[in-house]
């Protein structure tokens, strides 16, 4: 009975993954189609990858998009980490909840509204729409995600660690750098990757604030789709999919490195305790 249940569960899991991945593989498959459209596979070609390599405008946009994602995620991580600490160490439950709710409101409010309000905000301030305006808005909408990733780690932390550090004469800065940040590192890394992916695939907010020769991949693909998506876009999506797979694997190794080291030190201290006994 149990075995059968397990098999059914596996089948269900398998179906879910098939449903999730099929469209992506469909798209990848047709990026090699010599026929020029997605209606039928007529032969294998790398023509679209070649066309992609020659499309300097599109490649420039890819570079800009990644630059934007890396940079905005970095800034958002720095600000968000300190923001999480600020929220966590705010005195009074009520104040803390108010701050946290203000953070969460930004998480749940629709991108379109955030984008439109940024557009109005930038034009009122006279900031012209270019890389800077997109960067600022991406940092802004990434911060709440980082806060939410870091906060749980802070909650897990034993408060007596800080008391102990203070007893041993640590200054506030030392407490942050030597105690808190090392402890919440996994949260920070997770926050960075979340902010990175949010920035990479955001369309709605970016759509409003791009301009003056600066555009991101999502906006560009959307504009091109009017004429029917060319297989060049399929080729590009394939490369991006490979890239995100590398990203996931990289993230796995980084987080794996963290835990194994922790385990090692844990084992070591256990060994030492046994030795002294």
């Amino acid at each position: 009975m149990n075995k059968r249940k397990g098999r059914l569960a596996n089948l269900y899991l398998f179906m879910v993954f098939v449903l999730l991945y099929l469209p992506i593989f469909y798209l990848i498959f047709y990026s090699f189609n010599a026929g020029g459209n997605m209606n039928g596979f007529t032969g294998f070609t790398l023509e679209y990858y070649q066309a992609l390599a020659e499309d300097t405008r599109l490649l420039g946009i890819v570079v800009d998009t990644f630059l934007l994602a890396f940079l905005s995620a970095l800034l958002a991580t720095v600000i968000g980490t300190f923001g999480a600490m600020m929220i966590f160490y705010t005195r009074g439950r009520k104040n803390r909840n108010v701050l946290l709710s203000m953070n969460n409101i930004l998480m749940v409010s629709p991108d379109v509204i955030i984008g439109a309000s940024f557009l109005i905000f930038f034009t009122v301030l006279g900031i012209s729409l270019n890389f800077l305006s997109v960067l600022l808005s991406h940092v802004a909408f990434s911060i709440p995600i980082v806060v939410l990733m870091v906060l749980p780690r802070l909650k897990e932390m034993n408060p007596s660690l800080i008391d102990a550090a203070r007893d041993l004469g640590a200054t506030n800065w030392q407490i942050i750098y030597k105690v808190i940040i090392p402890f919440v590192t996994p949260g920070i890394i997770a926050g960075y990757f979340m902010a990175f992916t949010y920035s990479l695939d955001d369309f709605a907010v970016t759509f409003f604030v791009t301009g003056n020769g600066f555009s991101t991949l999502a906006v560009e693909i959307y504009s091109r789709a009017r004429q029917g998506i060319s297989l060049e876009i399929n080729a590009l999506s394939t490369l991006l999919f490979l890239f995100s797979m590398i990203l996931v694997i990289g993230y796995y190794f980084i987080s794996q490195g963290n835990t194994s080291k922790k385990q090692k030190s844990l084992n070591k201290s256990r060994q030492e305790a046994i030795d002294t006994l």
Partner: protein
Amino acid sequence: MRNLKVLFVGIIAIICVLFVTSRQMRTSQGHTGDNTLTIYNWGDYIDPELIKKFEQETGYKVSYETFDSNEAMFTKIQQGGTAYDLTIPSEYMIQKMMAEEMLIPLDYTKIKGIENIDSRFMDLDFDPENKYSIPYFWGTLGIIYNDKFVDGENIQHWDDLWKEELRDSVMLFDGAREVIGLALNSDGESLNSKDDELLAQAARKLAKLPDNVKAIVADEIKMYMINEEASVAVTFSGEASEMLDNNEHLHYVIPSEGSNVWFDNIVIPKTTRNIDGAYAFINFLLVPENAAQNAEYIGYSTPNKEAMGLLPEEIIEDEQFYPPDEVINHLEVYEDLGVEYIGIYNDIFLEFKMHRR
């Protein structure tokens, strides 16, 4: 902590590399200061070779940006914060932009080659005397059919859409002006009619159509017709030319009793920072060789009559896209009906869409 440091140093290194690459790509394309011309156009709506040629001929560097709808373009320019030197809206949007004073009147002393444009496409209602705009491409609304399923002889007029044999096989374009316009046209009336009696009559006529309608869709028509999911559709000539390229059984007909003619015109918005460059580009596009090359690439109908002489005969003699005069004379531009009648048109269309079979 060390982990985090390594990660962040790595990320900063990546950022630096990307930044330098991005800079280099930009300077290698020659974008420096005030020689940049920013063109805001529909996606894939110019032959990229022409942009290269323009850059070589004039020394300007083109920054090409794209939009997907007139409304998106309008909002972007109206909000400010952009520096577009040229844009190419459709005729109704030009009217709206004129009303909002977003356009710069053209200085005809700086424009060479305007005489190349066919006079039939100049001085139209939406922009009298072409004070603000110059035609870029034009096209029509018509019927596309698949000769595998229907006999072309039977699909020549709007009235044919009501024929019994087309039961459940017509796709309509999802637009109030288009659908009500074709009902008005089918009775020989103007598609800009503001006569309540005629509109009511059109609504009654439309009420008989739903049995034949398979779907009311927009851009998807292209895909469905190429894949032969429907035998007849109402669509624009620009879309039709692309469908014809992909499926040889398709044919496009402009009903001779009248239909819509649309224009995409070049305008200079007030956000321009390089007005000389904008004029240089307009002049460049008016050169017959360039207009012909562009028309061959895009597949829409060019208004440049000198360019038509340079196009292959099979394109020029194709009545599907370059209809004879007697058809053109029956074509009308959508006029701005005013808020009240736009509301009435939308109501009729909504009622039509909600019709139950």
